[in-house]
């Protein structure tokens, strides 16, 4: 399952950090963050609960970039 989320982040490097943080989150198979379109595309693992996983993704992104936001 793939989903796309709108994000807010200030710098290109921070977007890269978010991508790496999201990729390491449990339940996420793959992730790409586009700084330019401010979109985060997440591919979830089979059977993962998207809402729960996204909460975790948001938490780990906040950790690497406190000013970022993911609109769930």
């Amino acid at each position, binding site marked *: 399952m793939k989903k796309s989320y709108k994000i807010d982040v200030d710098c*290109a490097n921070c977007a890269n950090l978010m991508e790496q943080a999201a990729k390491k989150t449990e339940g996420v198979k793959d992730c*790409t963050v586009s700084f*330019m379109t401010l979109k985060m595309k997440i591919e979830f693992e089979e059977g993962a609960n998207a809402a729960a996983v996204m909460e975790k993704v948001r938490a780990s992104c906040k950790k690497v970039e406190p000013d970022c936001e993911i609109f769930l």
Partner: protein
Amino acid sequence: MNQKQKKLLFRILMAAVFLVPLYLVDLGIVKLSLPRWALLALFLVPYLLVGYDILRKAFLGIRNGQVFDENFLMTVATVGAIALGEYGEGVAVMLLYQVGELFQSIAVGRSRRNIAALMDIRPDYANIEEDGQLVRVDPDEVEVGSVIVVQPGEKVPLDGVVVEGSSNLDTAALTGESRPVDVGVDSPILSGSVNMTGLLKVRTTKGFDESTASRILDLVENAASRKSKSESFISKFARYYTPIVCYGALALAVLPPLFCMVTGIGMEPYASVGALWGDWVLRACTFLVISCPCALVISIPLSFFAGLGGAGSQGILIKGSNYLETLSRVKVVAFDKTGTITKGNFAVTAVHHSPFDDRKLLEYAALAECHSSHPISKSLQAAYGEPLDQGRVTDVEELSGHGVTARVDGHTVAVGNDKLMSRLGLESRPCHHVGTIIHVAVDGAYCGHIVIADELKENARRAVEELRRAGVEKTVMLTGDAESVAKNVAQQVGLTDYRAQLLPADKVACVEELLARCGGGKKLAFVGDGINDAPVLSRADIGIAMGALGSDAAIEAADVVLMDDDPVKIAKAIRISRKCLRIVKENIVFALGVKLVCLVLAALGIANMWLAVAADVGVMILAVLNAIRCLAVKDL
């Protein structure tokens, strides 16, 4: 400017108002005797005002184990400068850094908006008629085969076929072509176009996700995530660079003074050991300010993004910045013939040796062939252009492999190839034109022939010429057509080479052979219309699908999609990619070059904090401005 940017601007202005008089005092230009601690306290006001968020992020970064980022660099450098008594420099560095951040944010926001104009094709709702009332529903919920209503001024939400009404459509957002398109009953209509004049009822043929607008948006959004080599290089570079610079600065702060103290060499200029340390720590801080990688980290993706956006605004969709990179190195272009160089519609191109008016001959031929469904009869009818009265035609006899004989207005008319003519005992005159030759005989006398050929696209010649000027060394046409046709088209258009009589599988082999001969960083592009050539499109270094609007297979297989079928866009795409790559290279060389020079100057103690900030913010602003040039592709 958005709220965030306005707030930052306000903070910068306030801090600047505070800083200027304080700085004059600090320099001794304005005489005011203040104790050092009071001056420090006063300097901290603008410092914290303008830099509190940087300090906070640096602190949070350290706490979360993300130590080395530009916030950390700026914090260490400015705190270090202030601790060494360089209050003015410390605050000014923070202030200028924020000016740079603000500028960057505005520049990125602007290019984002420019590109959003292209993405303005997302339909928000669809109208469905329920009990005579129009109801707005989410286009996602409309089932395939339902009838939707598109009012003038609205975006077409889903692909479909018009069942009622007629109108003009503005497809500029899809094709970059500003001429409106007429539609009427039975016309296919694509989502993302804007209905301009009349009310339309449309039977949807695709769901929301498969509709053109969604597919294009998906493509554009994903484009930014296919990163080019330069982009990956920069993000990898940033990951190693910042820690290395931090350790470098640490070494610069500690090792030289230790060396001086131990050996006693180089101590002369310094009054005390404290002054020695102070000098080197300040040099290290300057070093840190210069080293900030923002100019590269922001400008490289921005250049690519602007390049993709600029191309998009011209109806050229490039699926990722990696393809932009490949496209810039294209030296060989292979073309499919039909639909790419030629229109793919067989049309009458000439009428020769007719004893009566050309139109009269066409009329006879069209009438004689009017019962046939063969493409040739369609071309004849199209060339004649007026409705045919089938009552004028009797005794139609089709002679398979030869042609048709019929009685038209009482005259016997024979229409067919040279075999038919010799069968009738007539001598047909050969034609120097290339194409399908249709001979006509009326009342037993030879009356000339009609040439039917696939028409060249108006722009085909110019397209090849422009490719040549764009530095493409070889243009090859691959076609299943006969040798004579291929040769003729290749000569007319000015191609360097052609391969005729190829089966679809041969085309792949041909492309492979061309690929093998490329080598040396030269790339091969294949241009097709997306029908039947998906394997070739994916085999070439870069596959370009033309006129692919609405053709799913082509959008899937190609790396570059030309929304309309103008072949001149191929050269344009290459020029856009070249410009974009040139700007990327300029930025890399410029930013790294200036930084390296300044780093050396800082380590030698020649560059002060002011130069450091100028190098950092100045380079970034110039790099961003340069990157935005990628958007200006209209006149390329």
